[in-house]
């Protein structure tokens, strides 16, 4: 800027000052960008904080009306009746039953598929199957809900379970199970592939065959990752909403019998939200209390899964 008529010395000084100025503004700009990017990262932190605050705050409002003890131990959930009762156990029982059915389907099948893909399948098969499994994960769950209510339930009624009611916990459990297979398969496969080749080669050198290698060498080495896959899949099954909202029925029913209809935590939240609920009413707050229970259940599972996964990452 000041390069001009005043002679060479000041011109040089001017250039240096310019340089410094430029460096300073460049530095400022860099700092500003860094802060902006950090802000983006903090959106995740704020989201978690907001979820916690909103759920706890609204639930506290709910517990002004309902004692926590009745909430945790009550076996009748009829918040929308004239004489409302707020016992969360029926919803928890429904959620657990469906999750257990889903896991009974998904854990064995998902694990076998993972072992097959990681230890047995030729390269080309894996290259085709993995994207196919990813596609299953991508199907909107409402499509599976339609399938459960209008295809699987009638099919079971027409064949092996003639007495099956139109809404029941068995079918959504089975369908969630199938929908969860890809999650377990691909996460466990990742864990098994992380086991170093040298361990398999050691086993082969000792005369082990593929089965022995898979079950006595690879599985024990990958076990924490595989269990983490189960745990994360269970968390997903617990949080699954649309399949149960469509196919499991909407009445909170304290039962573990899969042939009966029963609402889950998620189905209850969806059901209440579909209706008109006054902001701030007990019914409105009850969905936040149900959401808090749901969040705690999934959080425990997710944290467990997180630590298990970290263990297998650290091992090799």
């Amino acid at each position, binding site marked *: 800027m000041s390069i001009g008529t005043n002679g060479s010395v000041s011109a040089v000084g001017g250039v240096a000052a310019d340089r410094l100025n430029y460096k300073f503004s460049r530095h400022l700009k860099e700092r500003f960008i860094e802060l902006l990017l950090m802000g983006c990262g903090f959106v*995740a932190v704020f989201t978690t904080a907001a979820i916690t605050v909103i759920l706890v705050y609204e639930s506290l409002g709910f517990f002004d009306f309902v004692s926590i003890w009745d909430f945790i131990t009550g076996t009748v959930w009829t918040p929308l009746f004239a004489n409302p009762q707020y016992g969360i156990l029926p919803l928890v029982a429904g959620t657990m039953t469906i999750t257990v059915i889903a896991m009974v389907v998904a854990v064995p099948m998902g694990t*076998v598929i993972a072992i097959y893909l990681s230890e047995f399948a030729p390269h080309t098969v894996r290259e085709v199957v993995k994207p196919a499994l990813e596609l299953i994960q991508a199907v909107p769950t409402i499509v599976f809900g339609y*399938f459960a209510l209008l295809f699987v339930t009638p099919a079971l009624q027409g064949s092996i379970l003639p007495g099956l009611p139109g809404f029941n916990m068995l079918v959504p459990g089975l369908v969630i199970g199938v929908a969860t297979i890809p999650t377990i398969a691909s996460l466990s496969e990742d864990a098994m592939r992380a086991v170093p080749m040298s361990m398999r080669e050691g086993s082969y050198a000792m005369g082990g065959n593929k089965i022995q290698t898979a079950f006595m060498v690879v599985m024990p080495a990958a076990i924490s990752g595989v269990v983490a896959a189960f745990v994360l899949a269970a968390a997903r099954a617990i949080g699954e909403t649309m399949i149960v909202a469509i196919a499991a029925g909407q009445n909170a029913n304290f039962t573990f019998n899969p042939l009966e209809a029963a609402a889950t935590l998620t189905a209850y939240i*969806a059901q209440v939200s579909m209706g008109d609920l006054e902001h701030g009413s007990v019914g409105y707050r009850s*969905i936040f209390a149900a959401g808090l229970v749901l969040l705690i259940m999934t959080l425990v599972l997710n944290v467990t899964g997180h630590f298990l996964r970290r263990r297998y990452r650290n091992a090799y």
Partner: protein
Amino acid sequence: MTTMTSKATGAQTQNLAEMRARIKSGIFRQHIFAFFGILFTSFAVLVLLAAFLDLLFDGIPRLSWDFLTSFPSRRPNEAGILSAWVGSAMVMLVTMLSAVPVGIGAAIYLEEYAGKNWITDLIEINVSNLAGVPSIVYGLLALGLFVYQFGFGESVLTAGLTLGLLILPIVIVSTREALRAVPIHIREAAYGVGATRWQMVSNHLVPYSRGGIMTGVILGMAEAIGQTAPIITIGALTFIAFLPPMPVTAEFPFLSLQWIWSEFTVLPIQMYSWVSRPNQDFQINAAAAGVVLLIMTLIMNGFAIYLRYQVRKKIKW
């Protein structure tokens, strides 16, 4: 002497036979296991196919131009999904505009700027934690925060921001993977010619990894478009017989933001409301809406898989 050797060879052949039998049975078991592997894999894929075909058989006959261009109606054969797919498109737009810049920004921060300190740990823990939060909980967050605290109401904006938060972890994780795949010498070369960190990121890292970033963005959008539960929770209506105001208008300044405040419905909500009616004609409508939804997700996912394949094939550093 001779008897002893013959005894030994006898034992040896017996051992050999035993060993062969054992190897044979091992191989047999291997085949059995591989058979089960293939069986279960095809079972999972076949169930998906069954779900898909069931939907197609029920829905395809109902699909028509009228179905795509009509509003929902009390009469099932006059009903259509016009407001639903327009709503979905508008919500997706808000989701993309909110999640993509924030997600990529957060990923760049975590990969390129963050030091090893508690702030970084905090962000990372929260990102991985958010990936495991059930989608309906995001709906509760939006109901409490966006709808009532911020007063956004049951609008396109609320829904778009909710889904934006929901897919944020997907965008962050895949962007980080894409950035990590760029080798360190690219960074060093940029610094070597005097680039600042931001110049290095914006001129080199992001352009070189855009294939991977795009893949993540598309996967996130595909996830968002099928999400039903959080949108139900914020109280989206199921019967919308009007379109939100269009973003492009005839008068100056030609762009209008009115649409983000509008009430709306989306495809999966429309499908849900039809599925839960006892009238079978409505369930056929649900199937047809489901076909449209499924085709949209499959196209997006197929494109993402293709893109990733291309990226993997092309890049040789």
